[in-house]
């Protein structure tokens, strides 16, 4: 799914009023006419006929069930590519989640009544051969129902509009976020009920800006989100691979959740859908 979407953003960007798009990226949309972040799969592959989803009646109903659900999910480091490992600390407190304040600062807060559990796992690709580290986070959140999850997706879209620059923590800042969300019903190459993609850049303590990705899927009442903070020293193609690999990792998790719902128990995904790649 990661394959084509950046070019859409770029295409739209090419059509904007001069001066409005800022320095969001170094992309020169006109420079090439093919999807820049293609992972090599054919863009002509037709989308799957059904999204990854989780029926509401298969989803956890209580906080305890929800915590068990998110903990039972297997998210191996190599889902995101060769060489990834878990970070320390690895997992967040499932009774908290990150909230973007009016001041555009992310803080961890206790879950609201509409959320049953939220677990963030953290991974890194260590620096190697002159290429800086990549930090990937993956968050699975169980909402109390589908409507709450829809509202959460709308909220994520709104966050990027409200705060195009966001402070992730004491040192890291995200800039120039551009987001788009597509429902499966839109007929785009979407793999879950609703796929959100945000792209921008991040910088630590005034350092050089590097690519930043934030993808989020909704499957019924569950959302799966991942971020990637790219390190230095990668070519554009290599950065594209990082993004694509992050999307693949999310697809494995989405497939796990989907098959959990269908089988009624956890199952290792063996053949994730190829939609959109």
């Amino acid at each position, binding site marked *: 799914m990661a394959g084509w979407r950046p070019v859409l953003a770029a*295409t739209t960007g090419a*059509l904007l009023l001069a*001066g409005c798009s800022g320095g969001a990226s170094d992309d020169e949309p006109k420079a090439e006419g093919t*999807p820049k972040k293609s992972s090599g799969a054919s863009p002509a592959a037709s989308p799957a006929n059904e999204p990854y989803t989780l029926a509401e009646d298969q989803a956890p109903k209580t906080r305890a069930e929800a915590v068990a659900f998110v903990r039972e999910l297997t998210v191996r480091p190599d889902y995101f590519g060769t060489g990834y490992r878990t970070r320390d600390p690895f997992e967040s407190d499932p009774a908290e989640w990150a909230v973007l304040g009016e001041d555009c600062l992310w803080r961890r807060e206790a879950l609201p009544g509409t959320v049953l559990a939220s677990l963030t796992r953290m991974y890194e690709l260590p620096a190697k051969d002159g290429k800086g580290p990549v930090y990937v986070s993956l968050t699975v959140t169980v909402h109390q129902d589908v*409507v709450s999850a829809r509202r959460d997706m*709308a909220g994520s*879209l709104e966050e990027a509009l409200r705060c195009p620059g966001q402070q992730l923590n004491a040192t890291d800042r995200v800039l120039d976020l*551009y987001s788009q*969300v597509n429902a499966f019903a839109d*007929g785009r190459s979407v793999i879950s009920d609703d796929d959100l993609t945000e792209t921008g850049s991040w910088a630590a303590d005034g350092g050089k800006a590097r690519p930043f990705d934030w993808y989020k899927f909704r499957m019924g009442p569950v959302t799966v989100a991942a971020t990637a903070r790219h390190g230095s020293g990668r070519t554009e193609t290599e950065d594209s691979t990082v993004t694509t690999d992050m999307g693949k990792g999310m697809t494995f998790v989405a497939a796990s959740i989907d098959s959990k719902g269908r089988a009624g128990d956890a199952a290792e995904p063996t053949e994730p859908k190829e939609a959109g790649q």
Partner: protein
Amino acid sequence: MSEPLRSSDPSRIAEFRLLRRLGAGGMGVVYLGRTDSGALAAVKVIRGEGSGDDDFRARFAREVELARRVDNPWVVPVLDADAETREPWLATAFVPGPSIAEAVAAHGPLPSQAVRVLGGLLAGALDAVHTAGLVHRDVKPGNVLLALDGPRLIDFGIARAADDTALTASGLVVGTPGFLAPEQAEGQPATSASDVFALGCVLAYASTGMPPFGTGTPDALLYRTVHDEPELAGVEGELRTLVERCLAKDPSERPTAEDIRGVFTDDAPDASGGWLPDPVARMVAARAAESLAFPDVEPTVVDEPADPTRHPGRRRLLLAGGALLLAGGGTGAAVWASGDDEKPAASPARPVYVLGVHTTTGTAEAAVSRASERAARLAVAEHNATRKRSYDLKVKVLADRGDADTAREVARRFTADRNVVAVLGPVAEIPMRTAPAVYGAAGLTHVSSTTGQQDYFLTSPKSSFQSGPAHGALGGWIALHAYITRQVVPAGVVIDRAGGSAMQDEGTQVVSNWRNVLKSEVVPRVVAEDTDDGPKAVRDVLAAGVKAFVYLGALDATVRTAQALASAGFTGPRWMQHQLYGSDFPRLAGAAGEGWYVVTDAVDPSVLTTKPAKDFTAAWLKHYGSTPEPYATEAYDSAKMLLAEFARTVPAGARRRPVRADLAVRLAKVKYQGIARTYAFGDFHQYDNSSTGWADETFVHEVRGGRFRQLGSLGDLNRAAQSQG
């Protein structure tokens, strides 16, 4: 609707001072005139060789004499006439109201009660015409004007006395296909029963918005009129029974006009317009108000040089006026005498190529689908009217259901037909995401004029083109409109996901431009789909103290927002998403909708003063009885552009078939001058608006007086603002 007098026009005819040109048809020119006492009149001046012909004069005089005997409130009265002058003329009372065709095009079918009123009064009008010894012969939605107190039957231009068979003796038939009776279609004389048939068609059209024998080429319409049963789904009850009787193939089985009057005994309406739906009544009132504003004397304009292709033989002109002439002994092969419509397949030597039109069924896309089909038909008719053409063109329309599977199926059917050389469409976003892969694989070039996302390029980088701007670009232009018109104030922007993914494309750009370019405050809200969170988002944004409002959502949610803002007393500038231009918003929102803006590439050419816009508007009016509807102009431009470039791929001598793929190669490099914009394509085959021209190609419409009114292009508005300092 009207245009200034030309230098060649008289300034006065008898007691009528001429003010403007209302139109020019096959018979001559119709002027708006005013008597010395101030009454407005439509003065038709007969031009051409025939007007000097003694037979013609005698017939004309007789027609006038008979018409003067028609005394019925629902027939436009003859004020004066002169058959003896060099250019005979006829003056009738001027009725400013829209025709049924215009009213239905703008606001959809009429409610059954209004149709009953129409049926009763028009039957009375026809009865009076028939009693006077006349047959109207061209009863159609364009010839019934609406006034607040009832309809008016107009245009005796081709009416002939019932005992005058001069025209029909030669086997010629006059009328409008789709509304003329089977016996007329077969070349027999029209009788009063033929008028009753046409009345049945008009009532069916008013009830359903569609002619009962559909739309299409004249020969197809004639064939269906003679052989097929009418499509009357949606006409119900007593009205249905009556319309069915009117549409009997056998004239003797039809009721008389008097019989019909007896069926509709509803009281005649008062002058309040209460018999019409509100938006139509507003339209009628607005036209009446506009007519009061006609200045007494307007400057004349210099005549355009005569264009020989637009002046076919005078004899034919005399008979034409949008009329269909059938060859007497023919087998239904139809020819438009005025040379402005689709020719029959009467020339076996010429190959026939097909322009496909890929539309979508369903109410949301009905308007763009219809505009695309009509645009294609007009463009094709114009091609087929050129004398030296080396091939004929036909239109083939296939509709998907707005989903991926049927969109691909439509594309497969078009690509499988080797005579299809280009396709206009798809018209909807999902089909434009999915069908291009099929078109691309077959190398069949297509242009979509009504979509704004560029996904097609990934699967079809050669054959697929988009001639409208990206949704996002239009969002940026909302901000520009605010800037030009000095309405840069803190804005609330609500993106309602239920309106589709275009809402985000547009909203994201409104927000970023408002913040980064206008440097003003913006409060964004995103409403989740399938929730009822819209009203709360609107309240929240208002509570934040915004002074401008942008609501990007589906029609019903936008109407609800308009009502909420009106209730809250919010009077700042308000914008809706661009796809609602041409929608029912003005009617549904009522007073709460007044003042809302929409910024779109879709132009209303009827209010432009350039020659291309006027010519196009006139051609459309003649063809369809209404001014071009929203999205018609861009679809027409796209069709004409496709056909113009296709023409350049046709090998000389027409021995070989053109190669499909050649068209896309040409189109990628095209620079095509359309009615109101220049088309060129960017690297993604998207509408290229990277140059500065787009400001003059993007239009602001405001809801005023219950309808969308074009305020001008962004360029116009900018120049106006600059000139005011």
